[in-house]
C-alpha cells in the first residue's frame, strides 16, 4: 500500500498526459470533422467522394491497426523522405505523442464528420438566408449562425465521441507513449502487483468519464437556451 502512494504521483503525471492527448486529438478531430461535413454537403462531387471514402474506410478499420500503420509506416515514410529528398542521414524517431494524437484525431474526425453532417442538415435554411439578407459573408454566416445553431444538435454526438475518444487514448501506451496506462504497466511490473495499478488507472478513467458527462450536460443546457422541451 505504501508503495502505491509513493507511485501515485507518477501515475497522476501520466493522467495529465492522457488528458493532453485526449484534448489535442479532440481538437484535430473537431477540425477534421467540420471539414468532412462541409465536404460531404458541398456541391463538388470530388469533395463528396473523398469525404465518403474517408469516413467509410476509417470507421471500418480498427483504431489500433490504423495507429500501428501510421506509427510504423509514418516512421519509415518520414525517414525515407528525409533521406531521399533532403539527404538527411540520421535516424528520425517519430514522436509517439504526435503519432498518437494525429491518428486518434484522424480516426475521430470521421465520426465527428458524420455527427456534424447530421447537425448541419437540421439547421433551418431560413436562418442562414436571414444571415445573408443582413449582408453577412459566407464566413460570417458559418461562424455566427451555422455553428452556434447546429451545436445543439451536434452536442450529444460530440459527447459520445469524446467519451469513446478518451478511452481510445489508452492505445497510445502500445506505441510507447508514457501516459497513465503505460506507467501503470511499469509500476505493476516493478511491484509485481499489476492488478492494483490497472485498477487505479481504471478508476481515474471512470472519474474522467463522469466529469465529462456532467460537463456535457451543462453544455447541452447552454446550447439549448430558448428551446422548449416537449
Amino acid at each position: 500500500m505504501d508503495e502505491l502512494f509513493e507511485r501515485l504521483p507518477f501515475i497522476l503525471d501520466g493522467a495529465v498526459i492522457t488528458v493532453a492527448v485526449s484534448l489535442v486529438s479532440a481538437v484535430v478531430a473537431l477540425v477534421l470533422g467540420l471539414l468532412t461535413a462541409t465536404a460531404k454537403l458541398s456541391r463538388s462531387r470530388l469533395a463528396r467522394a473523398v469525404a465518403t471514402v474517408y469516413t467509410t474506410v476509417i470507421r471500418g478499420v480498427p483504431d489500433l491497426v490504423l495507429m500501428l500503420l501510421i506509427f510504423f509506416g509514418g516512421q519509415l515514410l518520414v525517414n525515407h523522405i528525409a533521406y531521399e529528398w533532403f539527404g538527411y542521414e540520421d535516424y528520425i524517431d517519430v514522436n509517439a505523442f504526435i503519432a498518437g494524437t494525429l491518428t486518434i484525431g484522424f480516426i475521430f474526425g470521421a465520426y465527428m464528420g458524420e455527427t456534424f453532417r447530421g447537425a448541419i442538415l437540421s439547421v433551418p435554411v431560413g436562418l442562414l438566408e436571414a444571415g445573408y439578407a443582413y449582408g453577412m459573408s459566407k464566413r460570417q454566416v458559418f461562424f455566427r449562425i451555422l455553428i452556434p445553431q447546429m451545436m445543439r444538435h451536434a452536442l450529444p454526438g460530440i459527447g459520445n465521441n469524446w467519451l469513446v475518444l478518451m478511452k481510445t487514448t489508452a492505445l497510445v501506451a502500445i506505441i510507447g507513449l508514457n501516459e497513465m496506462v503505460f506507467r501503470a504497466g511499469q509500476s505493476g511490473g516493478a511491484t509485481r502487483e499489476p492488478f492494483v495499478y490497472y485498477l487505479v488507472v481504471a478508476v481515474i478513467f471512470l472519474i474522467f468519464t463522469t466529469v465529462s458527462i456532467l460537463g456535457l450536460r451543462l453544455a447541452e443546457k447552454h446550447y439549448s437556451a430558448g428551446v422548449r422541451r416537449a
Partner: protein
Amino acid sequence: MDFSPIFENYPLFLEGLVNTTKLVVSALAIGLLIAVPLAILRTSRNPLVNGPVWAFTYFFRGTPLLVQIFMIYYGLGQLQFVIELSQDWTFLRDAYWYALLAFTLNTAAYTTEIIRGAIEGTPYGEVEAARACGMSKSQTYRRVILPSAFRRALPAYSNEVIFMLHGSVLASVITIVDLLGAARIINSRYLAPYEAFLSVAAIYLCFTFLIVGGFKLLENRWFAHLRPREQTTGKKQTQPA
C-alpha cells in the same frame, strides 16, 4: 510495396483469422447470453437489484477495453489461486482465455445497456395487453417484451458487433496471434508496415461490410411489417414528404 511476405506467410494470417473469428463470435454469444438477464435485472426498480448491474455496466463502459484486458490478463493471472489452479488446468496459462473473458464482460456490459434501453422502450399497452390475456410475468417477458425489445435493439446491437470486432485487435497486445497479431509478426520480421497493416486493414474492412450487410438483411426480415406497403397494394404510392 512488396506483398510477397504476406502471401508467403498466409498460414499465419489464416491462424489469425481463425483466432479473431473464434474470439469475436464466442465473446458476442456468451456476452449476449449474460446480457439478457442482466438487462432485465437492470430495469428493476429495487436499487439492490439494479444497483450492482448498473455498477458493472458503468465500470466496463467507462474504462478502456485495453485496461480491462490488462487487469484480467496480468491481474487475474497473478492471483495465487489462479496460479495454483493452472498447475492442473494448463489451459489457464493460455492468454486466449483471458482475452475471451475480458471481451465477454465488456460486450455483456454494452449489450446490457442496449437491451435495457429497448426493454424500457416497450409501449406500455403491449405489456397491459399481455397481462389482460392472463400471462404471467415470465410469459410476458418471453412472449411480448423480449421479442419486441430485440427488434428495437437490433440497430444498436449491430454497432456493438462492429465495436467488438474492432476491439478484438487488442488480443494481439497480450501475445495472441489474431489477424493484427499476424500482421505485427510480419512487420517485425520483414519491416513491412505498409504491406502488413494495410492488408489486415482491408480484411477488417471487408468483415465490417459483411456485418453491416448481414444486419441489413436481418433488419429487412425483422422489420418487414414496418416497410412501406408499396409492393402489396399493386400500384405505386407516393410517400408524403
